[in-house]
């Protein structure tokens, strides 16, 4: 039996820049984002889903009826990130929220920059803060902010 070996530790990054194809539904949503617009899609039961799903969560039908929506909405639930993690896209305290875009039924998740937890509440109105430059990516919505 030999003496105890040293503990060998080393940081490493596992990563790749994936090149994804979006298909027509996700592509349509991202194209709209680039134009600083939000589109939803009608589910089998007529409810408007944001971001648009390709297939209905209940019937599994392929969905295709897009609906133009405003860039405002209402917070359905939220969580306050007091200490953003390194990967988080905002480097100051922020909220995650499920936001029901006005005119839609199924809410989306994004960030809300409200400055302070006390400014957050379920039912509050928010609007999109668009990125300075949009490119057709989910982060074209930089975040939402209190409206």
């Amino acid at each position, binding site marked *: 039996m030999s003496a105890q070996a040293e503990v060998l530790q080393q940081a490493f990054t596992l990563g790749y820049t994936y090149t994804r194809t979006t298909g027509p539904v996700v592509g349509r949503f991202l194209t709209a984002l680039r134009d600083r617009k939000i589109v939803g899609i009608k589910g089998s039961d007529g409810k408007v889903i*944001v971001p648009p*799903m390709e297939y209905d969560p209940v019937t599994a039908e392929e969905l295709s009826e897009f609906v133009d929506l405003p860039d405002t909405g209402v917070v359905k639930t*939220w969580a306050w990130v007091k200490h953003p993690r*390194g990967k988080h896209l905002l480097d100051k305290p922020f909220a995650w929220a499920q936001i029901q875009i006005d005119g839609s039924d199924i*809410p*989306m998740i994004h960030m809300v920059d409200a400055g302070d937890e006390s400014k957050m509440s379920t039912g509050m109105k928010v609007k999109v803060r668009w990125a300075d430059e949009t490119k057709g990516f*989910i982060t074209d919505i930089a975040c939402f902010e209190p409206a």
Partner: protein
Amino acid sequence: MRDIAIVSFVQSDCVRDAGALNEVELIMPVIRKVLDNVGIQSAQDVDFTCSGSCDYLQGAAFAFVLGVDALGAVPPIKESHVEMDAAWALYEAVLKIRMGQADSALLYGFGKSSPGELPIVLSQQLDPYYLSPLWLDTVSSAALQARALLDSGKATEADMAEVVARSRKNAKSNPHAQLKGDVSVDELLAEPTYLSPLRKHDCCPISDGASAMIIATVEKAKEWGKPYAVLKGIDHRIESHHFGARDLTRSVSTEIAAKAAGVADGPVEVAEIYAPFSHQEIILKKALGLGDDTVINPSGGVLAGNQMMASGLSRVGEVANRIIKGEIKRGVAHATSGHALQQNLVAVLEGA
């Protein structure tokens, strides 16, 4: 259908960082013990072996391949792997036994979560267009669910603290637990929020470790001459990936699985529930249809230590061990996968 006997279950201690133990070194001790309990030598002595693990926990493709080194798989064995919690490996083995291709099976799950930032790693379980690029981590998505539950009036922060206090207390009698002790609901509520509405203690710790189980037909268990618990029912279900398409205050997939597994067919003395966040135990207790006469998570549950990819199997094992020891006659175990309880498995266990 053939009844399944759970003959042996072993788990390693939950530790924050298993440090200089690789996958084989992590798995081998629990495999050794679970085999010794039954009095068999290696995977050669069972008809089927199945494991559960996740490459991304330690950041290496095919992490599970190394696990085979711990089995003594020469000559070759019948073996499979799910990229899921090992509770689903148990399910796969149940199918194999029910179809008559195996009379016995060895199952194990292992996870070394310590090398990465687990909640962030698991953000990449989300759809790759809308959510994973936002790095919505698992604590954050759970916090969204917790707020929805609190807003709905179905639970209070005190209810959540009560779950934690009970977990810590129960864990005192669990030698494998990572977090244990006496703490009052008031003390817990006095703590600051961590990811509001969650406090740090509402979230499970991150643990390295492994667990293993041996199941068999009842005939085989008798042949081994070992006491066993009987797996009466097992079922698993998934629900929509779109958070907005789900009622986050319920666990519909658990409700369906509980019904299919036959939870309500008898009294439930003990339930081991895989609830990585305190509020999820409240949601799951309801979804499982459990009353206040059921002792929930006598091991402390995963709030006392969460070995990702093994914890679900361990919930089943915890209940089985109580039945084998004669402490209870009937219990329920639950496992979960994905963000905010997207996928769930329910098992019903009874005495022989």
